[in-house]
């Protein structure tokens, strides 16, 4: 297991995961480079390629389609302005874009009313984060289905803190206080959830 993980690390360092990712990644890097050169069609191409994914993420994070559209607009304007700052050596282009969108969405979430009743807010957030279990609109996207499946397979104690932290911007301390769990336990569960998702992704590409 350890050997396999080391191999994975090495393959990522070499930017060769042995699947179709490199081609998609190279295309994203090229588009971002063009956007940095003020190429508006490149931005349109990037929008066509990842717009739905970002919009889905934003709706899930904000639970409000109108607000998600505003943040979507802000995200692509931010990509337009900051494309020259992107460093392919530091992160994958899609990760960079997702983290930009997440940051803007978290700003919106923080601007909302303060979480006065932590326990009630926690339950409300969990309810809003329940994954759809029925037929999905875009199930033809096998990768997305695989990721959703992997997330559903995570034990609840891992899945909930992970989603609260990533999608709602709750800090580890806030989650620990709301759940009454030790901080170290929450941290460990979030790490394990992330690593499990990464493994699922790796398995899918394998």
């Amino acid at each position, binding site marked *: 297991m350890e050997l396999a993980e080391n191999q994975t690390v090495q393959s990522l360092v070499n930017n060769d995961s042995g699947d179709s990712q490199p081609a998609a990644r190279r295309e994203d890097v090229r588009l971002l480079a063009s956007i940095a050169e003020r190429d*508006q069609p490149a931005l349109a191409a990037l929008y066509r390629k990842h717009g739905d994914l970002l919009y*889905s993420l934003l709706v899930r994070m904000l639970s409000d389609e109108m607000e998600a559209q505003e943040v*979507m607009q802000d995200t692509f304007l931010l990509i337009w302005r900051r494309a020259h700052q992107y460093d392919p050596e530091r992160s994958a282009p899609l990760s960079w874009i997702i983290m930009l969108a997440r*940051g803007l969405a978290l700003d919106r979430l923080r601007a909302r009313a303060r979480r006065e009743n932590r326990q009630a807010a926690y339950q409300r957030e969990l309810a809003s984060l329940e994954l759809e279990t029925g037929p999905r609109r875009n199930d033809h996207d096998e990768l997305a289905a695989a*990721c959703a499946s992997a997330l559903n397979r995570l034990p609840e104690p891992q899945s909930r803190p992970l989603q609260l932290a*990533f999608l709602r911007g709750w800090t580890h301390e806030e989650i620990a206080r709301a759940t009454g769990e030790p901080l170290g336990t929450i*941290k460990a569960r979030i790490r394990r959830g992330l690593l499990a998702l990464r493994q699922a992704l790796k398995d899918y590409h394998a």
Partner: protein
Amino acid sequence: MPELPLPEEEAARYLLDELSPGERRLFETRLEQSAELRALVGELEEAAVALSKASPQKRAPREVWTRIEQALAEETRTRRPLQRFWAGWWRNGWAAAAACLFGWLLYAWWADRPASPASTPAPVALATNAQPGIASGPQITMPNPAHQAQAENTSTFKLLQSRTQELGTLSWQLLQLTNRIAALSQTLTQQQALLSEASRLKFFQLASPAGPVAASAIPVSTNLQRALVLAMARELGWTPPAAPASTQKPATTDQAPANSVTSTSTNQAGVDFVDLRPANTNTTDQPTSPPRGDPGNVAASDLASSSNAVPGFISGTNAILAFDTSIAPSGSVLTFWNTSFYGRSQSIGSAVLGDNPLVVSVPFSTSVFQGGGNVTVFGNTTNGALFFLGQYSTSVTPGP
């Protein structure tokens, strides 16, 4: 289950943007140095992508892209003129600097220009005397408020300017005075320190202020030179003091001041030494009235003066003076007076000049604040004539 290693925890916190700014900078530094850490972060980012993809799929509405295009067009419109402006600014930097200079000059001219009649506010009395409906007297026009405000601003500015200049001048004068006081104090301290040093001798020559030749230019007789050398040797302790030879007393009361003291004379190598310092004299009378020859009563310029100077030196708090017959006739009674800084005269004592050279030691205060100031010497000849021998005073020369 074993605990996750620290790098994974940090990487996850980095990914979730939970690191403080300091921690984030530190982590990014390590990230640049460690390929393994970069790979770990990359893996966690992939997990985040997977988490994003796990969200229920939604199709972005078409109008979102329309709004993005409109926002981009708007941004481009506002950015281009700005870019052109800044590019032009940099290209034409000298023109901009010249414009600033011109603006400054214009302001300086405006601030210093004389107030125009139109901008002079009307006298308040004139305005209050004006009565509506009465046409007598000069037509009173109300001052334009804008001009009035401008004139007030100008006059206030001028007043402020003049006050600032006055303050600057006063500050400069105060600084100069402070420096001068400091220099005077330093000089005084130095002179007092020099004079109070017993081993340091300061030479001088007493001469009449009305004398035709400067004291330093008057030659000193050989006998006086020898007497002075002997006096120096005694003062410095090179020769043991000789036993008292005689006690001098003024011959007549007319020849000495009433508060004269008896002085002990010793002879050494043909030179008479008289010590009028308090430890070596006994005051016989307290001063009753200023005697003849008191410099407080008789002006030195009214008296005859010696044609020769009296050489001497200051040693610590003593003044040592040498006399011989080239200065005053043999048998003359020499009286010594101390006049304080505040003009109060006090007799120190007297000594009789014989055929031998005479060296007289008198107390001399170096501090003008302790009653010292100067030593004046008068002589009374045997035939009753009074003449002025000279005066030595503590002089304070201000520093530069």
